[in-house]
């Protein structure tokens, strides 16, 4: 397999993961498309490291979340050139209206959290254990636990108020 083919395979296999990261770190569809392109580009740029990485999944989460952090503070841009079609970003629309509404509420509450907490809840929802969340985010396991209980309270309160 050539490097290009390996890269395409990696993105295709993990396009759902990239979609979910870009959803919680962007405020609208245009921003999400731009962030999606940026994550794909950054993955390509550091693809050689990926091949050496001990835990590829940890690496991809890091690249995605770190790209989102550095990208968020930049001026909002329109996606350029070739862009992924809307249909690739419309997963939520295939859900039932009740589910979709709840998901939108959840996104809205997650977006209110600070950048690190957003990453922590994202990894938690992805089913990661506290140890792995600590490894990806670079904070201690006990800190993950403390933050998780605070996040839990905030999300609960937020969703109830809406």
């Amino acid at each position, binding site marked *: 397999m050539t490097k*290009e083919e390996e890269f*395409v395979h990696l*993105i*295709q296999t993990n*396009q*759902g993961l990239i*979609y*979910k990261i870009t959803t919680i770190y962007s405020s609208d569809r245009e921003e999400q498309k731009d962030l999606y*392109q*940026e994550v*794909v*580009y*950054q993955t*390509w*740029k*550091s693809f050689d*490291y*990926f091949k050496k990485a001990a835990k590829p999944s940890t*690496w991809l989460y*890091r*690249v995605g*979340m*770190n*790209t989102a*952090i*550095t990208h968020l*503070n930049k001026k909002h841009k329109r996606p*350029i*050139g*070739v*862009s*992924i079609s809307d249909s*690739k970003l419309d*997963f*939520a629309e*295939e*859900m039932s209206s009740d*589910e979709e509404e*709840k*998901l939108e509420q*959840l996104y809205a509450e997650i977006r209110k959290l*600070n*950048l*690190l*907490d957003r*990453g922590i809840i994202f990894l*938690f*929802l*992805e*089913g990661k254990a506290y140890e792995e969340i600590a*490894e*990806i*985010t*670079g*904070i201690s396991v006990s800190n993950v636990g403390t933050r998780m209980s605070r996040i*839990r309270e905030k*999300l*609960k309160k937020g*969703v*109830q108020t809406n």
Partner: protein
Amino acid sequence: MELDEMKSLWQNLSVKVENQDRIQKDILLEMTKTKFRRKMNGIRIPELFGSLFCFGYAGYLIFQFDKIDLRLLQVLGILDIVFLVLIPVASLITVYRLRSLQINHLSTAEMLEAFGRAKRNFWRVQQVGVWLAGMMVLTLVPILGDIQDRLDELMEVEFWMIFLPFVLAFMFFFSRYVLRRYRKVMDQSEDLLKDI
């Protein structure tokens, strides 16, 4: 909504996401290449152009230095040459540091810290650069006048009556813009660091 419910909602989404059509290979590669080209054009040209302008001006002052007769203007000339070299070099270093953050190595907490610091340093240099640039505009005029043997014309009150308010007004508005932007970035960086 309880956390367990959120998790199950997220899992439903994950299943739908996994079942979606794969992005086509050619679209993916073209998207990456376009982004790469755009980055190359967008990042380097304005910074390099500004730096080359400063270096060019510094070179001009160095080669014409023997034509500066007044001692005061010679001292100011040396200072201007130093600033014309130091400001773009410092600016390019901070830009480089901001853009070369190891996205693939750092953990999220490390990235938040490194990005917050790099951004603050970048804007500190920009702020100093604006003030020094304003001072240089004022000092370069008499220096250039001396080099071109037109110092007498520049000593006329009318010239300074037009030139000075224009430079001061420009500096006022430009520095106000930079300062506002600086404060905003500092606040954002503080927030980033507070997140950790």
